[in-house]
């Protein structure tokens, strides 16, 4: 026999206790601004290294695989590219001249707020939402690298999402195709504002929807650029979201809605840039 009988709680009471704990935590998150700081720090040091490690192995394997496949291709391409380099050098000099002109003009109209001016930090994606309902992912930088909640995340020149949670070495990013995301946006050419919403149904087709676009003069066309609006409280202004794919008048005849093809390829995201400037 054991030396002493272990004291054990009946499962009924344990269930009751933990249920109350969960409900308490839910209420806490609803009413206050999270009290999970220490918890996150602990889990940060346990899980983030493991996830990073697994990803490292994955990257290494895919790297090696690609190396072999690419070698042959690379040789053929090298020759082709050398030719292109010559062409591009010529083109580049012309563009350089154009660029200087553009800079002068920009200064002239005091329009120097392009997102090349923002401070950015590169980060790698190390994990994805374990369920299939939402589109969130984990990146390998956190408060130690100066990240904070509500910072915008971009990749490939377009908006990816926004940081919703941040720990010492990780941050959770909610992408703009997530079902719960709403972004205040506008059409670049006409400055008409609209709301861009993620939708699980459209997510699988790689598109997102927009609504409440007031376009009385019918100036918005398919293919127009959609950027984040200047009135958004969290998203920095004029970050490219995508291009109008489809546009339909709403039943009320005042507003329009439709779909957007995002510029970012959400299926194959690996690295992202976090803009560390907050609005």
């Amino acid at each position, binding site marked *: *026999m*054991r*030396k002493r009988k272990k004291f*054990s709680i009946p*499962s009924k009471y*344990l*269930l009751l206790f*933990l*249920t109350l*704990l*969960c*409900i*308490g*935590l*839910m209420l*806490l*998150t*609803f009413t206050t601004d*999270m009290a*999970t700081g220490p*918890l*996150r720090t602990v*889990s940060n040091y*346990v*899980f983030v290294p*493991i*996830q990073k490690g*697994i*990803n490292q192995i*994955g990257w290494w394997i895919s790297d090696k695989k690609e190396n072999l496949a690419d070698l042959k291709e690379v040789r053929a391409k090298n020759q082709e590219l050398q030719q292109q380099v010559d062409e591009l050098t010529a083109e580049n000099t012309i563009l350089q001249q154009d660029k200087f002109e553009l800079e002068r003009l920009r200064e002239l109209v005091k329009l120097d707020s392009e997102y090349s001016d923002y401070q950015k930090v590169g980060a790698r994606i*190390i*994990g*994805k*939402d*374990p*369920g*299939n*309902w*939402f589109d*969130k992912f*984990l990146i390998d930088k956190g408060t130690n690298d100066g990240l904070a909640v509500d910072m915008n995340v971009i990749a490939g020149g377009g908006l990816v999402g926004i940081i*919703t*949670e941040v720990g010492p070495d*990780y941050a*959770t990013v909610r992408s703009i195709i997530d*079902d*719960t995301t709403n972004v205040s946006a506008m059409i670049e050419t006409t400055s008409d504002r609209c709301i861009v919403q993620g939708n*699980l*149904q459209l997510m*699988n087709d790689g598109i997102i929807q927009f609504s409440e676009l007031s376009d009385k003069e019918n100036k918005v066309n398919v293919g127009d650029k959609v950027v984040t609006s200047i009135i958004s409280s969290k998203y920095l202004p004029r970050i490219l979201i995508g291009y109008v794919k489809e546009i339909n008048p709403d039943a009320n005849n005042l507003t329009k809605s439709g779909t957007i093809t995002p510029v970012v390829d959400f*299926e194959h995201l690996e690295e992202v840039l976090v803009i560390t400037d907050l609005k």
Partner: protein
Amino acid sequence: MKRTLVVTVLIIICYVLQCTLFQSLALASISPNLLIVVTSSFGFMRGKKEGLIIGFFCGFLIDIFYGDILGFYALMYMLIGYGNGFFHKIFFDEDVKLPMILITLSEIIFSFVIYFFLFLLRNRLEFPYYLVHVIIPEVVYTVVVTVILYRIILWINRKLEAAEKRSANKFV
């Protein structure tokens, strides 16, 4: 003690795999739910109490990193673990049918509850779409993974139980 350690490691491995490897192995952007397999198998293998504790920690992990509301997933996994515990009495080792049925049922209930609370309440009414494109593929994929994962869990549990029996005999 040994059991706690082994189960903790198992949960961590499953969670990390689910977040990394299985997200990349996703078929049609659907990935299986390993944590539900762990929770529900320990539920019927070891009884209500262990099911509910393991479920709580599995859910809590998701809550910390990905949850909007802390405690939501913890509560759900916990109840699933507890519910599976009711079948502990009719479970015996060699039977494969009961575990498969229970895990499938748990997964279906889990998906429905998520749809109800996180989608339907936000006015997303196209249930048939979600059923065909998310719920059914996830259930099928999870069941396929269960065939392998359940055997591993069963094996771990047998080893642990054998070790516990041995150490209990020592004190007699």
